[in-house]
């Protein structure tokens, strides 16, 4: 009797399991718990980053070791490590909230892909910011070999080859880290810097040296400006409800900070 009932029971159990697995409407992912920034009281910090003093002499890269690079941009293009406009505006500075943000705030992780190109045997853009968990896609636009070598101390370092023009490689950083260096060991001059942060309050200065951090909840923040050659500068800024604060950073030739 027991054996006769065992087979139908097993069948029913299996069918029930399949039915449960095939359930078409999984419960929606729970919204992240924690405080949300109130747009009604959110403020901003904006400003410019400049370089004071005698501008460093421009440096030129030697791309002679790869004919494909020479064909793309010439044998000795200008090094983009230091880009200073005539009015002193400093480009490629990563500005972000380093401290002061209430850790109870939570932010949705963006699903938009941050793009980093290898073009003319240089990384374009040279400095970018991404969020923890946000995908970054590195593309080889050159008709030559590149390798993408992430030099990181907190996140997992990696080294991947991109031998084909049009190769794409996605990566997601799992922890905040300012900055992660991307190198190409085939072309020693190729460098990109990625600021990985856990919140949306970061910016990279353009040619005019300006930056803007929007949507900040009221509070007192440590803002850090990072430049690959000149080091770091910090400022403490208090943002009141709906207040737009201005702050500026001035770098000099001597490297500062870490």
């Amino acid at each position, binding site marked *: 009797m027991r054996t006769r009932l065992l087979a139908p029971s097993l069948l029913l159990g299996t069918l029930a399991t399949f039915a449960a697995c095939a359930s078409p409407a999984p419960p929606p992912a729970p919204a992240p718990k924690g405080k949300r920034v109130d747009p009604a009281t959110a403020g901003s910090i904006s400003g410019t980053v400049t370089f004071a003093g005698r501008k460093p002499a421009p440096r030129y890269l030697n791309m002679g070791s790869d004919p494909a690079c020479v064909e793309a941009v010439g044998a000795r293009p200008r090094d983009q490590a230091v880009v200073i406009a005539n009015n002193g505006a400093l480009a490629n500075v990563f500005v972000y909230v380093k401290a002061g943000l209430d850790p109870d705030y939570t932010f949705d992780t963006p699903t938009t892909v941050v793009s980093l190109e290898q073009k003319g045997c240089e990384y374009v853009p040279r400095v970018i910011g991404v969020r923890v968990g946000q995908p970054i896609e590195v593309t080889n636009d050159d008709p*030559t070999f590149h*390798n993408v070598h992430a030099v990181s101390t907190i996140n997992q370092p990696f*080294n991947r*080859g991109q031998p084909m023009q049009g190769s794409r490689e996605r990566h997601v950083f799992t922890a905040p880290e300012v900055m992660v260096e991307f190198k190409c*060991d085939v072309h020693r001059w190729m460098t990109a810097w990625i600021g990985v942060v856990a919140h949306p309050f970061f910016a990279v200065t353009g040619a005019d040296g300006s930056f803007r951090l929007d949507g900040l909840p009221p509070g007192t923040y440590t803002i850090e400006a990072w430049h690959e050659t000149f080091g770091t500068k910090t400022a403490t800024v208090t943002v009141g409800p709906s207040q737009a604060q201005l702050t500026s950073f001035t770098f000099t030739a001597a490297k500062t900070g870490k």
Partner: protein
Amino acid sequence: MRWLHRYTCLLAAATLLLITAGGMVTSTSSGLSVPDWPTTYGYQMFAFPLNRMVGGIFYEHGHRLIASAVGFLTIGLVVFLWRVEPRRWVRRLGWLALAAVIAQGVLGGLTVLFLLPDPISISHAGLAQIFFCLTVTLALVTSRTWLRPTRPSVDDASLRTRMVWLTALVYVQVLLGATMRHTGAGLAIPTFPLAFGHLLPPVWTTPIAIHFSHRVGALVVTILALANIATVWSRHRGHPELTRPALLLLLEIATQITLGALVVLTARQPIINTLHVATGALVLVTSLVLTLRTFRVRFIQAVPAS
């Protein structure tokens, strides 16, 4: 036997070329320009198109190709020894060389796959020198002057002991150099001959300590080498099998110190940096040859010529 000696000389020369190529890989920071191993960007190693050997790939893939050639030559050596060499210990030395070159290849692959961890990279550099020593030893003990010396060998116990010390110290110095290179401490003290304007560094960090140890090591090796060379010159001037390598050692040490200074003063110019690596290897094997020749008297067993 003469062809065996020529073959071992070829292998030793190829190994020096391999060490030099490896020096160029580290000096140009090309170690990770080929991210995969044993393939090269997915190609089977020997199928990688030569016209794609650009930038750092030229050094890294070139190093791999030369390493493969040395590997094949070592396999050939084992076969050659097995066919013509009557001395069992020499045949065993060949097997040891083969084991070393296989281990060296694996270490080279691992250091690429694990993104150049210092312990693996330093071991790779250290084993390279041991393998070079093995090939030079094989070249020496298969030579006519070793097998059929024209004059009685020198029997100088104190020189033997001091030569063993010198060779060991040179090897330690080579390891210190490799540690300095792979930990990025090559310019931790950016001035020469003084350290930041002082005899002793006024500040101590790990890179400065490694760098300074290499400088102190150079001084110790130079003093001991000069003492040993002076001994050879004063006691055994009639023995060219000792005076020749002693003179060569003197020249190599002078060259090596000059190159070491230039490495610092040129901020690690890749070719100078590499010549420093290669000359370091030559100092080691010259010291080894001198040491082995002081031990020649112990090898009393006559070997028939083939």
